[in-house]
């Protein structure tokens, strides 16, 4: 059950060959050198995938998607990560694309989906609000009907990539109902409309990838609503089901762990020798490796069978905590250089600290940023609540 079939193995080889030959080498080189990718890099990367018909992962085939099985999707994700290719920005391709394909109007499908695949439109996800985080259903962002338009008011926060995005899809309250999950609609807006202001938020790792987006009487046509009024909660949950493995990132974990071990071979250990021979470090790395092996088996297991909400939640916790454990190993390794923080926009960014291994600043940034993995996408605490509900149901 954990082995690839011959067809899957052939597909893996095909994907691997693609990243080696037909994918922009400058993107891979930048990633490998720890340099920050800019929007154009992502466009180049997406275009290469699209040229091969591989950008619409998780989309149905008749909308330009790949139509892959879960196993193929997983193999592709893993090869992309192992190749050091750019992570696909999920907002458009992974989050809203499949929802548009499933619930959008014909016009939305005809206009929005090709724009995503052709990298003409980047999207942002407007779910969270200052007062609605874990308790997302309590959101207050409002859409009030005015003829053929909605008037949008409210604040979205933690909006990843809004600085690059052309569109935003928002959860908006269109009516007050008995249950707070009801009366929420999915409404899209171009981000350059009058009344929208984007405020960048600086994160602890020094990045500016998140934003606060304010809407002040922003007018959009009712035709920008996806699906039925008041049904957004249902759509979001459908998406959740199809995307439960999007946090797995097994390939990235393998890549990062391998990279760490390679770095260790160049790092001096106390009392001579290098850190790859340091017993404490080796055991610590082996511990993470063992965990990762079990997690990979969990993911493979879940590809072959229907998994429960509880299993999916357990997997999210395991995968995100494992990513954090790898980033901890990295700062443990790099710690001797006192954890410098350096800007990484320029190709020669390591020159600012010539006596410090370039690995250090990368380790710092990833440790800090990866703290977010257990916060977004349903925090670890919220996942545990989901799991407990399932366990409690067993007693009944």
């Amino acid at each position, binding site marked *: 059950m954990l082995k690839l079939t011959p067809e899957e193995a052939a597909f893996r080889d095909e994907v691997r060959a693609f990243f080696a030959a037909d994918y922009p080498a400058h993107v891979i080189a930048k990633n490998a050198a720890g340099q920050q990718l800019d929007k154009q890099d992502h466009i180049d990367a997406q275009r290469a995938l699209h040229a091969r018909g591989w950008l619409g992962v998780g989309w149905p085939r008749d909308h330009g998607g790949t139509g892959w099985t879960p196993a193929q999707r997983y193999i592709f994700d893993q090869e992309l990560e192992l190749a050091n290719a750019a992570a696909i920005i999920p907002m458009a391709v992974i989050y809203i694309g499949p929802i548009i394909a499933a619930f959008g109007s014909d016009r939305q499908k005809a206009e929005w989906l090709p724009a995503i695949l052709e990298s003409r439109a980047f999207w942002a996800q407007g779910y*969270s609000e200052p*007062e609605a*985080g*874990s*308790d997302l259903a*309590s959101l207050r962002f409002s859409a009030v009907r005015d003829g053929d338009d909605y008037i949008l008011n409210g604040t979205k*926060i*933690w909006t990843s990539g809004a600085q690059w995005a052309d569109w935003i899809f928002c959860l908006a309250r269109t009516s007050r109902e008995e249950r707070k999950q009801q009366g929420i609609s999915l409404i899209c807006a171009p981000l350059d409309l009058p009344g929208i202001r984007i405020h960048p*938020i*600086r*994160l*602890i790792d*020094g990045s500016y990838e*998140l934003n606060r987006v304010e809407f002040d009487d922003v007018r959009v046509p009712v035709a920008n609503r996806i699906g039925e009024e008041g049904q957004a909660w249902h759509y979001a949950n459908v998406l959740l089901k199809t995307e439960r493995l999007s946090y797995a990132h097994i390939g990235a974990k393998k890549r990062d762990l391998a990279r760490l071990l390679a770095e260790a071979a160049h*790092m*001096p*250990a*106390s*009392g*001579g020798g290098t*850190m790859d021979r*340091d017993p*404490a*470090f080796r055991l610590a790395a082996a511990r993470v490796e063992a965990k990762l092996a079990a997690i990979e088996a969990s993911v493979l297991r879940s590809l072959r069978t229907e998994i429960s909400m509880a299993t999916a939640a357990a997997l999210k916790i395991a995968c995100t905590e494992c990513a954090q454990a790898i980033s*901890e190993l990295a*700062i*443990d390794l790099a*710690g*001797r*250089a*006192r*954890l*410098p*923080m*350096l800007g990484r926009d320029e190709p020669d960014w390591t020159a*600012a*600290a*010539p*006596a*410090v*291994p370039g690995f250090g600043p990368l380790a*710092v940034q990833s*440790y*800090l940023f990866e*703290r*977010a993995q*257990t*916060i*977004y996408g349903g*925090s*670890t*605490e919220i996942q*545990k609540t989901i799991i407990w509900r399932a366990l409690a149901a067993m007693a009944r």
Partner: protein
Amino acid sequence: MLRDSVRAFLAARGDRSWAALVDRLELGEALRDARQGAIVAEEIGRARAALPFAETAVTQWLLERCGGPGFEAAAVLTMAWAEPGMRYDMADIAMTARRDGDGWRLGGSKSAVGWAPACDRLVVAARTAGTVGERGGLSLFLLDPALAPNLRTHAHRTIDGRPAADLIFEDQFFGADALIGKPDQAIDLIEEARDRATALLAAEAVGLLDSLLAQCIAYTGQRRQFDRPLADFQALQHRMVDMYLECELARSAAWLAVEALDEDAATRAHAVSSAMVNIARGCRFVGQQAIQLHGGMGMTDELPLGHYVKRAMAIEVEWADADWHLARIAG
């Protein structure tokens, strides 16, 4: 008394520089006395003030022990030991200082020396004899970096936002008086300096961790989700209790380190390492949980929280990491 005045100084507006702190509160004594120093360090941690306290205190101590020249307490002093080719063992120092006539020529690299871009004087550990890995052959030099044209200074900032620099000595000449203390025999002093600095950092961590816990208690008490304060959820209550347990151990650990500083070398080493293993675990756990409990807010640079976490991370690794201390305990 001392605690209150440091706390009041750090809470006030206006000049919070090192010189102002030292002059206003007459901290000369606290720089020499580890118990008083620990109180100052704890308050510096609580306020997360970026001040070169441990660096200066330990360098002053070294100068005194070496019979070097005295500096006013307000001077910013720091010590350069770490190098790209070593981890935490001082015997692995490779930088060379060779005699040239009356004086010395220094060659080699020091990495991420805290406060180097802002210091008045620098004490540098270099090899005057022996080979890398040997305990013998290390000596200390007192330098004015401003008067060293063949010293390349690459200034950057460490995770805690403090100034640091990579220092590359290209056969820089220094006069005979640069050497302080006995030549070739500095390693015991360097190791004791590390333990003294570590004890002060442990005390600073106590203030940092206390404050992080207090910030979490305040935030979860005020932040509402699911129609009630986050602090109503028992899962989070128990998490904060776990943080408190680490804070308590950290406080005891800091005492353990400070009170062992005047013991014999073996006792001191054991106590300081035991302390630091606990401090490092506390820094890691409390820092991670503090971010987690704040959700998205914990990820922003706008709250003080993240800056506390990053200072705690710096303390974990500044003079040696938990693995090195564990190895020293294990012997």
